[in-house]
């Protein structure tokens, strides 16, 4: 909380919620990368097809979406109560709960917990929350190595790269590039490595197995936490997450506060929605659930770090809070025509695509991500695809209304609105001759931002008369 009592935003200078440049400039660079466009276009088209097929099998898909949306709305309406319940249950089951107001606090908590174990290495389950707060960098600064064990996340880490997709962080890489990265950066790799998917997977497996067996501490995120039982859940495809969640002595889970669900039964809805929307599978291969610690079985020390980092501020906006319903399936990325062409890095945040465009600016405050709500043509494909029915186009419009506007644009918009509200003035402004003068010879030499249009498109031929002139003469 700030001294005014308003919830704080995610702090600057830590984590990965802000890009180096505004979206249009970053997108311009990405669009010129033909390999990236091919990879992302191919991958999203494939996932879209798989997902549509398995969703089509469920006659009650729309009711499931309604249920998912309603459960999340209920969670947001009584979040403090549910979090306290979760804390009580986790504690009863032998876990320790920590509250982190922001990225700095969360990083400090995790770092000191790892230090206390005496380990200088942790294995990681793929997690958006720890990417968001820049945990790996914080651990590294404290002399602790963090090894990503999700295959795609490992590719990103070894390539000293950034994830570009929520679910498939290396979606921008093809297998030839992955081979190069492994040859360059994977300890003990076979120099005769080929770019066959099986061979690449086997190389990663060999490297990771050794790491799993020799590391005493794991760090994970969580897909869900059940308030009534204190149970945490992680869903994944590879089994590497299961290794991290069961083999080490100590498990530290960093979870955004919005991930809590009231009851065990609520999982029924989300475990149907999530895999079909994300990987296009009927069921994800691995679902790991744990409640505190079990003597003699699995990690004997469990810490749950509950992360705010701007979420309370999002919750305070009655329209904007829908963004907290997100279950990180990335269906909106896979159907987004903007994401498909720019890839994820252009969004500058670990949360790319349509959900990133509405979540990142709310977590950081709109000033720090002012261009993101405009990174959409408002085509609406994301809303249709969202398994919990987040009205992303509505949120984009809502955030644009809060965004700081350039002075020249503000003046032009005010003038346009004034003209539109005075029909005689409007009719006068419409007259083809005036427009023709402004437009010049089919728009050559227009000033910015109008030159953006004429860079790739002709202006329409001007009609001899407007419709209302035609109508008046009838």
């Amino acid at each position, binding site marked *: 909380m700030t001294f005014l009592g308003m919830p704080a935003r995610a702090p600057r200078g830590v984590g990965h919620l802000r890009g180096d440049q505004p979206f249009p400039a970053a*997108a311009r660079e990405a669009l010129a990368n033909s390999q990236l466009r091919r990879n992302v276009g191919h991958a999203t088209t494939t996932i879209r097809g798989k997902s549509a097929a398995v969703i089509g099998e469920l006659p009650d898909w729309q009711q499931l979406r309604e249920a998912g949306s309603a459960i999340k709305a209920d969670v947001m309406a009584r979040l403090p109560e549910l979090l306290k319940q979760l804390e009580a249950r986790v504690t009863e089951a032998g876990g320790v709960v920590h509250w982190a107001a922001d990225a700095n606090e969360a990083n400090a908590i995790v770092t000191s917990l790892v230090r206390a174990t005496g380990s200088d290495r942790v294995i990681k389950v793929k997690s958006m929350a720890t990417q968001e707060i820049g945990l790996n960098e914080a651990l590294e600064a404290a002399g602790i190595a963090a090894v990503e064990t999700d295959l795609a996340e490992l590719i990103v880490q070894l390539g000293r790269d950034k994830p570009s997709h929520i679910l498939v962080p290396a979606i921008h890489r093809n297998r030839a590039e992955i081979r190069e990265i492994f040859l360059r950066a994977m300890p003990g790799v076979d120099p005769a490595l080929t770019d066959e998917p099986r061979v690449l997977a086997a190389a990663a497996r060999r490297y990771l197995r050794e790491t799993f067996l020799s590391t005493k501490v794991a760090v994970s995120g969580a897909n869900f936490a059940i308030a009534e039982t204190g149970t945490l859940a992680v869903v994944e495809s590879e089994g590497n997450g299961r290794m991290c969640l069961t083999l080490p002595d100590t498990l530290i889970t960093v979870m955004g506060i919005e991930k809590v669900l009231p009851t065990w039964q609520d999982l029924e809805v989300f475990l149907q929605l999530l895999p079909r929307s994300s990987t296009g599978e009927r069921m994800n291969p691995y679902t790991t659930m744990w409640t505190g610690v079990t003597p003699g079985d699995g990690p004997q020390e469990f810490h749950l770090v509950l992360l705010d980092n701007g979420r309370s501020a999002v919750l305070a906006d009655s329209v904007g809070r829908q963004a907290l319903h997100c279950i990180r399936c990335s269906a909106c990325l896979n159907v987004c025509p903007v994401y498909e*062409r720019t890839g994820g890095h252009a969004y500058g945040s670990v949360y790319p695509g349509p959900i990133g465009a509405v979540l990142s600016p709310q977590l950081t405050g709109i000033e720090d991500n002012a261009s993101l709500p405009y990174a959409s043509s408002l085509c609406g494909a994301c809303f249709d695809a969202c398994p919990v029915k987040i009205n992303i186009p509505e949120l984009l419009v809502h955030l644009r*209304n809060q965004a700081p506007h350039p002075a020249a644009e503000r003046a032009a918009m005010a003038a346009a*609105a004034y003209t*539109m509200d005075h029909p005689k003035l409007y009719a006068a402004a419409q007259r083809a001759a005036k427009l023709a003068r402004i437009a010049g010879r089919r728009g050559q030499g227009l000033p910015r931002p109008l030159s953006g249009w004429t860079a790739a*498109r002709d202006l329409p031929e001007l009609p001899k008369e407007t419709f209302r002139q035609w109508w008046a003469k009838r």
Partner: protein
Amino acid sequence: MRVALFATCLADTLFPQAAEATVRLLERLGHEVVFPMEQTCCGQMHVNTGYQREALPLVRRYADVFAPYDVIVAPSGSCVGSIRHQHAMVATAAGDTRLAASAEEVAARTYELSEFLIDVLGVEDVGACYPHQVTYHPTCHSLRMLRVGDRPLRLLRAVRGLELIELPHAQQCCGFGGTFALKNADTSAAMLADKMTNVLATGAQVCAAGDASCLMHIGGGLSRLRTGVRTVHLAEILASTS
């Protein structure tokens, strides 16, 4: 039936042929068309660019100007989408509950052209003749805000002489998005490039749609590349008899 035409500012100013065709079509079907001269713009550009306060007078103007009419028809899925899904929201956000209520009422009587023809008039064959190869781009807002579904295609299939060629990846956005095309001109152009590729793959000589805005975008690209493919509003095809 007496029908009030909402021409939309874009068609009124730059694409009068779409609004004129709507008038000719509805009159040919035996209806009386009126055009309230006090109408201007639905305010969508302002709302979608982040200027809801500036849009408020335009929302009020639309509700006031069209309040007296039982049925309002516009040759645009996008503008009708804004009227139906944004006008009451803008009024509510400004604390004007009376305007929100009247905006809601007027919006409920406002139809996009293909909705009006099929749902209200119950007609699929409007007696048109258009002997050309046509591909149809379903605009995002008509598809996903209004859910017009295959209504425009049913109307086109009934047109004599028209050969309808299916557009690959038809439901993908053309990249217009209002001020998106200016603020994110490069991304918009990349989306347009793919849309044009698909249009050209059909071999059709005409690309049709129900929104002058998307057509301005697609047409601007097709013209820039001198493809020889032209863009035509759905209303113009349905109004055509030769």
